[in-house]
């Protein structure tokens, strides 16, 4: 997924004649090399998905052998009718919106700044990237101390200008506080991607634009930004997929509370499966999450990243 190079023009030329090869032996070699990975993939990825789809049709507390009490699509109808599911989707939409409109532009801005020749550039890069290296659990514990409404650092800081907030304890601010933590943790990662993307842009193009009389913003708007397109599309993609599956941070910071105000699909799934022992229903939630991710991934690759991924599976039909 990291190779986002454009298809070279040469690819439309007739392929050079290959030396004849014994077809059978080639297949055997391929099978031999692919087999271990394939077995692992089937066992650890495909099989669990199938089991979850199977289990989602049952009322099952998860104990003992395979489920027996088949209830058809009841788990799904129950899910689609549940208010918690609707709020989960709303939270997903809000977080994705904030990520794309706030977090990623912020990362892009900082990446552009750090691409300038400024003193201590690599130190800044290191500092901004550091939060991404921390595990989510550590980040969450850290921020539950910082955002404590009674003794937290955050209230001390905004207290200077006479403000205070209950952060994670107030249903009205919890989602924004969560986004704050997400941004702190992940903007460095996106900044790094953008920096790498920016450095792939040949300096000649920028120079040429400058010679033609374009200044700062115009160079960025008409040269840098379009050429960063593939990088930005990938970072939006990663951001959305991550948000669909968001769990660790939320679970430790809020457990989805107060009153479900910060609950995500994965938190609901965990609560239903492990606290309430309704594994059939939880499987239905996981199937819906899987479906959401799959539809988004395929749709996004097909329509948004089409040019970046030409030749990949999703664009198979377009091959000329």
């Amino acid at each position: 997924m990291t190779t986002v190079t454009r298809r070279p023009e040469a690819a439309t030329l007739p392929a050079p004649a290959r030396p004849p090869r014994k077809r059978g032996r080639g297949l055997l070699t391929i099978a031999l090399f692919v087999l271990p990975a394939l077995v692992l993939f089937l066992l650890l990825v495909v099989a669990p998905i199938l089991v979850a789809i199977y289990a989602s049709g049952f009322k099952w507390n998860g104990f003992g052998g395979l489920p027996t009490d088949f209830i058809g699509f009841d788990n799904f109808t129950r899910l689609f009718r549940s208010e918690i599911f609707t709020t989960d989707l709303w939270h997903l939409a809000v977080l994705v919106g904030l990520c794309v409109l706030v977090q990623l532009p912020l990362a892009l801005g900082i990446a552009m700044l750090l691409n300038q020749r400024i003193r201590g550039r690599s130190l800044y890069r290191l500092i901004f990237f550091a939060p991404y290296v921390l595990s989510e659990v550590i980040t969450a514990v850290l921020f539950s101390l910082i955002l404590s409404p009674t003794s937290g650092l955050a209230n001390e800081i905004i207290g200077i200008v006479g403000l205070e907030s209950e952060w994670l304890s107030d249903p009205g601010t919890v989602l924004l506080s969560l986004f704050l933590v997400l941004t702190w943790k992940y903007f460095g990662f996106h900044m790094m991607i953008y920096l790498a993307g920016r450095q792939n842009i040949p300096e000649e193009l920028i120079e040429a634009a400058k010679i033609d009389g374009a200044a700062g913003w115009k160079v960025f708007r008409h040269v840098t930004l379009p050429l960063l397109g593939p990088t930005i599309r990938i970072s939006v993609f990663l951001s959305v997929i991550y948000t669909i599956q968001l769990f660790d941070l939320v679970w430790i910071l809020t457990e989805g509370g107060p009153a479900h105000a910060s609950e995500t699909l994965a938190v609901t799934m965990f609560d239903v499966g492990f606290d309430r022992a309704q594994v059939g229903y939880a499987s239905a939630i996981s199937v819906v999450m899987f479906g959401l991710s799959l539809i988004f991934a395929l749709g996004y690759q097909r329509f948004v990243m089409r040019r970046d991924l030409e030749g990949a599976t999703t664009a198979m039909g377009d091959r000329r």
Partner: protein
Amino acid sequence: MRRTLALIAATVLVAGCGGGQSAAPETDTSGGAPQKVTLEWWHLSTADPLKTVYETRAKEFQAKYPHVTIKMTVLENEAYKSKVTTLTQSGKAPDLFATWGGGVLQQQIDAGLVKDVSADVAPVLDTFTKASLTAYQFDGKTYALPVDIGMVGFWYNKKLFEQAGITEPPTTWSAYLDAVTKLKTAGITPIALAGKEKWPGHYYWAYLAMRIAGLPALQQAGVDHDFTKPEFVQAGQRLKALVDLQPFQKGFLGASYSTPDGQAATVSNGKAAMELMGQWAPNVQNDNGKGLGDDLGFFPFPAVEGGKGTITEAFGGGGGMAVGADAPAEAIELLKFLTETGNHTKAVEKNAVLPVLKGEESAVKDPNLKVVADSLANATGFQLYLDQAYPPAVGAEVNDSVAELFAGAKTPEQVAADITEVAKSE
């Protein structure tokens, strides 16, 4: 996909590892040195003195039976519940593990994960008080032995009550609301509550339901799966009236129980006047804050005027230890070792647990725990924590709905209706 698959991966484990117990070969009884045995012991006593008591017992047991190695897994409440659920759903259980009895234990028994120890403990069963055993006995069979039994009540700061001009701990609900108002007027936060963890909040609703509807009605509601009687709605309304007084510490909806700024620490550091908590409250307070020492007092949950329940009916539970279905015989020995008269009394003397054996009452040294033990001994009725008494889904719904009532997101009527809906579907 990692998270999407977390659950289904666990499901696959059911199919994959349903069979054998990890590494616990049967003891060789045909003579010679017994084979080495590793015992998995899971409990949730993360706070001293009980934590150290258990470590000491484990060492003593290993000294007595050199072929036994005890591997302890100690987790706090919420994490413990999740981890046990995850393991039991994969078809296994630890060799010895902490349980509260009730509907959760019942579900594990139904899944064939818990050993029926009736025959093994028959000789010692008579040493236990009857009340302490009930949560672990089903159809006349015993599935666990109690190590602790207690009740939930208000733990309060005598000094702060005095400052607010409250001379006597309240015995009626209206006097209680008065006390809350007086504390507020005196600029003192009346109550600390861990809103994030939900289970401490459910104590309020459960006690009010007991006091208003009466204990038999609450127990009947569990059997009938019907919590819509007007008395249960009233319990919610009384609770809402308390919440409307805004008696809790700042940010209580996001507060945990045993963290540096949690419920226990808030009381322990004198920043709130009381908390509704079980017999372990003093130990957790000391563990998370300065501790109140002699300023700490205990009073039972007040009676509600016109209600069918009385102030002498207790709500709470203790802790027991259950033995996994595939556990080696040594696990039962360890269970008996923990609860035998000498050893258990030592734990009582350290204020770690309350008496579960007959005649242990005199070993209780702490004056507050003495009040708890006496209230319990004289209790006219007893109700186990609702989130343990009922099947997991119903218990979790009680906790969840009541938490939403605290947050103002659900009405008392909705709480009663939602608990009923889940109870009916189980």
